[in-house]
């Protein structure tokens, strides 16, 4: 998607990409914590479903 923004929007896209990069860099840890938590819950839930069915 960033690649799409780059080609589709030109200069306006540059500002958006800049904002996205700043945010992603700052929130990297938080984003990964939430992702890991939910993926873990999904996998463990699937395992429970698998064991009992």
């Amino acid at each position, binding site marked *: 998607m960033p690649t799409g923004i780059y080609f589709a929007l030109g200069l306006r896209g540059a500002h958006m990409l800049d904002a996205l990069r700043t*945010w992603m860099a700052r*929130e990297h840890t*938080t*984003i990964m914590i*939430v*992702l890991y*938590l*939910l993926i873990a*819950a*999904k996998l*463990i*839930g*699937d*395992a*429970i*479903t*698998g*064991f*009992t*069915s």
Partner: protein
Amino acid sequence: MGAAIGQVLPLAVAVAVSPLAIVAVTLMLSTPRGRVNGPVFTLAWAVGLTVVGTIALLLSSGASASESGKPATWVSVVKLLFGLLLLGAAYRRFRERPRGDAPAKLPGWMKSIDRFKPRRVAALGFGLGGINPKNFILTLSAAGAIAQTGISAGDQAVALAVYVIVGTLGTAVPVGIYFALGERGVHMLDALRRWNARENTAIMIVLFLLIAAKLIGDAIAGFTS
């Protein structure tokens, strides 16, 4: 029953990850009223989840949510709609995110939370737990997932109970720390509150995106099966 529990587990964890509620309960616990207000808030949160979950379970069992084993069209339409709403909400949160060193914006009621009486705390817990849009959508999904497994009413109740208990961990753990650790817990609760307040926007954006992807994916699977 295990199948239903497995299906609702990720939804319950998504309910437990509620930064605003964690900020609210840790703020309450830092006041003299915390001894009463903390448990009241957590209990009301669980009651809110239970009430909405029970109503949704009764409705989805009665409203023919599945036609010959596959989800009814209206279920897929609702899921698609909720998914798109959450995508929009994630985008709006990103637009209004705190920038630079600006402190995160918290709702106005948070400022006077230390003066709340237990009755108001209970209403807040019930509302945030059961009725706030994120939990509401998750609880509807959980009820739908439980109903679709076609298990007995008793087993459905157990699966819903597991969903409520896991979904309440986010607010119950701070209360547990408060009572179990006393003075030593104060620093932990403080750190927990500051992190959740600061990262509220980022946490919610990731949550909204993942739930939206799950709902839209379910809808696509439902439309094409």
